[in-house]
């Protein structure tokens, strides 16, 4: 016998997977250059490599990145029981940005075998995580308001440092930094994409697999503990997982934060608060949202490109305000 929840979950998750796959197949064909489909079909350049290389890698990056940010967002919202908790409000993403900006400014292209920007982003995120968590730790417990306050404080410090670094660098780095800070997607090497997917994929699965614990934590820490969850361990694991998801993504895409806030809220207003349904849907729909915004950005003002981060904000922001206004969001 299948319960009602079960059936709803299956329907929504299946729909989100279908949309995700459809986006992966179709969105690479959207772009400013008019494609000759015969050439694509016969694998002839330049059309074939535009689709298979430039646009496909970029679309996949958007799909996975949007998914990772949306999952990290729903994770933080459940763990902290706060509508505003995202990798952004907790400072993790800005920390990652600072790290990335410093590596661009210092011209570190390669550090310890991986991209310098990537390494910088990870170090920055880890550093912020450490500061925020130690600031909010009292009597072996993490305080939610402490985390948010410390996160917002660190956020503005990192923001100021980014401006400072930006101001001190020469012309070419300064241009690269501004370009990166706008938060756009770009074609990337498939090897980098593979590494990224190898980090994000298993981590997302691990986070979603713990959805029952996030559900308990969303009610309250005492509630979770007395229902049998190991609260402190889950919280530490959740922070690490959410921060790695955010940092890895920010390193490749620049700061496109809005997906992590808007997607979980939209889904919760439709699906209710069960993370077993919300989190998988957040991954697939989050990816689709970012990839569609990126595709839209490619054609909207062609040949100029509107960064995907800007489009997500343009669409998601008003929608979120509208939902709040209508009272569907609490």
């Amino acid at each position: 016998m299948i319960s009602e929840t079960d059936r709803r979950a299956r329907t929504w998750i299946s729909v989100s997977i279908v949309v995700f796959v459809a986006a992966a197949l179709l969105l690479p064909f959207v772009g400013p250059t008019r494609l000759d489909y015969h050439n694509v079909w016969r694998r002839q350049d330049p059309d074939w490599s535009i689709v298979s290389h430039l646009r496909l890698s970029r679309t996949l990056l958007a799909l996975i990145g949007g998914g990772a940010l949306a999952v990290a967002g729903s994770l933080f919202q459940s763990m902290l029981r706060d509508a505003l908790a995202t990798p952004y409000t907790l400072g993790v993403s800005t920390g990652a940005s600072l790290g990335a900006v410093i590596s661009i400014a210092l011209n570190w292209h390669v550090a310890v075998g991986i991209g310098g920007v990537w390494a910088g982003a990870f170090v920055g995120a880890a550093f912020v995580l450490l500061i925020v968590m130690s600031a909010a730790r009292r009597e072996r417990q993490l305080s939610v308001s402490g985390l948010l306050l410390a996160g917002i404080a660190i956020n503005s410090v990192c923001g100021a440092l980014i401006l400072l670094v930006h101001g001190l660098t020469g012309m070419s780095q300064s241009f690269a930094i501004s370009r990166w800070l706008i938060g756009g997607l770009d074609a990337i090497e498939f090897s980098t994409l593979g590494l990224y997917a190898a980090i994000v994929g298993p981590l997302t699965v691990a986070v979603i697999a713990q959805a029952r614990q996030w559900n308990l934590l969303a009610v309250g820490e005492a509630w979770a503990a007395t229902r049998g969850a190991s609260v402190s361990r889950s919280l530490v694991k959740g922070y690490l997982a959410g921060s790695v998801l955010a940092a890895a993504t920010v390193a490749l895409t620049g700061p496109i934060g809005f997906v992590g806030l808007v997607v979980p809220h939209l889904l919760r207003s439709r699906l209710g608060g069960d993370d077993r349904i919300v989190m998988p849907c957040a991954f697939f729909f989050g990816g689709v949202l970012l990839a569609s915004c990126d595709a839209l950005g490619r054609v909207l003002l062609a040949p100029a490109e509107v960064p995907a981060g800007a489009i997500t904000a343009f669409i998601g922001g008003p929608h979120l305000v509208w939902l709040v206004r209508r009272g569907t969001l609490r």
Partner: protein
Amino acid sequence: MSDPIVSVRDISWRAGTTAVLDRIRLDVRPGEFVAVMGRNGAGKSTLLDIIAGLRAPTTGDVLLDSRALSEQPSHERARLVAHLPQTIRTDLSIRAEALVLMGRYVHATGWFESADDRAIAAEAMRRCHCVQFRDRIVSTLSGGERQRVLLAACFAQRPRVLLLDEPATFLDLDQQLECFTLLREEAGQGMACLAVTHDVNLAAAFCSRLIVLAERSVAFDVDAATALESPEWLHAISPRLDVHPAPNGRRWVGYR
């Protein structure tokens, strides 16, 4: 007499430099329904939290089923003890039934709860008079309705000890009576119940044992059946309380 299922051994708890509980000793056996009473700040909730494993005592330990609480991981503890919190966040966007099903967390192994889990949850909701709220979103329930759903979640957990932090809060008078009747039934079937309450009449009528916390320790520990014959314990709660004969021949606590 059966062995105690909860054995509080010389528990002390301090908040900073203020001692809240000082060397508390207390044994609770299966089948007992204990009312924990006392003034605000007497440490009632703290005591319940310590037994539930939510706070570590400054000194001392609690034995649950003859095993030290500190040595039991939370998933083992949750099979023994369920805790009804004073309140939870009110803006939850999940269905009432989902909240009750959370009581099955340690028992359920699958990604979704099994048909058995759902049957147990449905039975718990029926007993707590909240089946009709099953598909309501928790944030739309009134305080008393929510309280009944929370109690159902504790029942669905199928524990051997129930810790209830003011179970009658928000409940209307009829539901308060229903709630205490239900808890007395549970105790009759071998559950050990500890309920924090301020209602001395409910406690004296339904509980089997009354405990009054005062001056950081157990000031009174009396048998409920004879409690109203020697009312000194009442004065530890308020000097304005007195026992009066009720029209039906029983005694009840009145105010001065």
